[in-house]
């Protein structure tokens, strides 16, 4: 039965997932837009953020400290990888970048397995945040998820301020628009690149750290998020932060609502067996169908400001 309360909850969950997706995707879309760098290993930074948050949380005894410290740790890791691998890939074609970063994912997944074991680590939501806001029957909103939405929105605002109001942000926008020109004007492009990598890593780490209590922290986590991030980038337009935000929200909501609504809708037209089999599959299909639709009819993205 689909009640308004249930729908509201799914909407809420969708928003929360969308925000997390946005944090993850923002870095990726910047890399793609400014550096023309297809970095699949971004998902390993997400995973690193989650693992560091758990490990540091246990070490300091505080969930908050762990989460906050995980960000600079992951950025440091990203800088090392940038020095060793990324910077040799900037000028290569996308196939090379995909395969090299794929190798990195393999490496990091295995490292996680070595250090923390193959099973997942379970983090629980800190006691202070484990409550729920109940607005009625079936309309239960976990506080923690509300927090994520809050943090995410704050970050989005901060990011927008950074991009629009600071000098670095201006360089990023210029770089996204015409990378060659930025170089010609005499800006140290390598420093800019490192900046962008660091920023992206920090955002991914935050997404990972916050996601820890919701999903299990395990090697290879983020696989689904990576694919969805690509969908978000396609829908939102490469290089556009604003586009990523709206697209991520769209994807999150469509995914969450679709997963619950579609199987039920389906069962109204067909037998329960078929609905049970195809329903969930269709739920996840919806996002991809949306992406394909965008690629066919508006390839530059729904929210793209300018053509690349």
């Amino acid at each position, binding site marked *: 039965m689909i009640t308004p309360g249930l729908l509201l909850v799914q909407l809420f969950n969708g928003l929360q997932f969308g925000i997390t997706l946005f944090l993850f995707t923002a870095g990726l879309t910047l890399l793609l837009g400014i550096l023309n760098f297809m970095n699949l290993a971004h998902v390993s930074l997400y995973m690193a953020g989650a693992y560091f948050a758990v490990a540091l949380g246990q070490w300091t005894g505080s969930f908050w400290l762990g989460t906050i410290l995980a960000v600079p740790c992951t950025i440091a890791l990203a800088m090392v990888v940038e020095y060793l691998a990324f910077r040799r890939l900037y000028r290569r074609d996308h196939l090379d970048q*995909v395969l090299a970063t794929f190798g990195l994912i393999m490496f990091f997944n295995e490292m996680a397995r070595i250090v923390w074991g193959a099973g997942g680590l379970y983090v629980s939501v800190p006691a202070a945040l484990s409550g729920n806001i109940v607005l009625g029957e079936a309309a239960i909103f976990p506080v923690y998820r509300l927090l994520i939405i809050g943090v995410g929105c704050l970050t989005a605002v901060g990011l927008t301020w950074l991009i629009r109001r600071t000098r670095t942000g201006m360089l990023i926008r210029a770089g996204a628009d015409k990378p060659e020109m930025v170089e010609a004007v005499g800006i140290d492009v390598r420093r800019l690149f490192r900046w962008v990598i660091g920023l992206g890593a920090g955002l991914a780490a935050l997404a990972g750290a916050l996601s820890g209590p919701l999903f299990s922290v395990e090697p290879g986590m983020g696989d689904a998020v990576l694919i969805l991030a690509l969908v978000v980038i396609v829908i939102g337009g490469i290089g556009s932060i604003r586009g990523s935000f709206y697209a991520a929200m769209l994807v999150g909501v469509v995914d969450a609502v679709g997963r619950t609504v579609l199987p039920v809708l389906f069962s109204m037209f067909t037998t329960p067996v078929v609905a049970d089999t195809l329903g969930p599959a269709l739920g996840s299909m919806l996002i991809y169908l949306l992406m394909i639709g965008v690629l066919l009819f508006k390839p530059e993205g729904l929210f793209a400001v300018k053509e690349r």
Partner: protein
Amino acid sequence: MNNRKFGSPSGIAILCLILLALPPVAVAMGQPYAVTFMARVLIFGLAALSLNLILGFGGLTSLGHAVFIGLGAYAVSLMMQAGASNGFLHLAVLLVVGLLSSLIIGAVALRTSGLAFLMVTLALAQLIYFVGTGLRRFGGDDGFSFRGHADFGGLLTLSNDTSIYYYILFWIMLATVLMYRLLRSRFGLALRATMGNSQRAESIGLPVFRYRLVAFVLSGTFCTIAGGLLAYLTQFVSPAYMHWSRSAELLLMVLIGGMGTLLGPIIGAAALILLEEGLAMLTPHWQAPLGILLVMLVIFARNGISDFRVLFVLAIDRLRAKAKSPAENEAQVGTASRKALP
């Protein structure tokens, strides 16, 4: 396109003889596992060969080609599970499944190119992957195995690894011959032109989309057949066959062996599988060194085998140079590197 890319005829003949003689020799030497191993190598060699058609000669990077392998494997497995064990029937179904799926995926994906194409193929493949994991009836995430052997009337029964091996060998040899002719044909010329300069191709009257689609369909169909062969060999299928990381591995096989060569992908498949198995024998955590090796491979030896040759020759030269006088050094190293680079 010169013959250097295809290898000398005598070299290929020797290779064929070795492959043909492998099973009886392996069994006689008490190493039957070698047959299973080579069978696997040849299956992925076939898949990589097919991928190379659109990648090395069409310039299209597909990050979703493993989906065809998966579909082929599922087709055969489902039929075997249902009791239909006729090999000819399997073949017919594989062809239909391959043609249809590659036609649909290609028709959608080829409306884009470059990075967008990569992302669409990835997304479509993952879509099918998720459908596979969701379908509980077909085993969902865990997949399923089947018993029984396929048979081709009275001609052949795939009852053991050796018979399966020869069936696979037949297919890969057929595919190689077809590919050889294809690349030198008018279609091949047109396809290679679309890779080099699609805008120019359009302007002389070549409808690029059509040719890419045909190439994609040919490529996908042979991959589907490879998937069916994989099912015969493992008697098992699961959505994992279709995961995007398997597609990335296929791309690596083509890269290692050398894109844009005929036999390169087969060599690349052998190299990658050997590497994986070899590392697995050294450590259970073989994916870590493998990951690093792959990164280094892409960064330093992007052209695969031919780069190895170059690096090897350069290294030898450097060693030799150390034993000579400085003046001789300059001349020697200079000419050597000019000789070695293709």
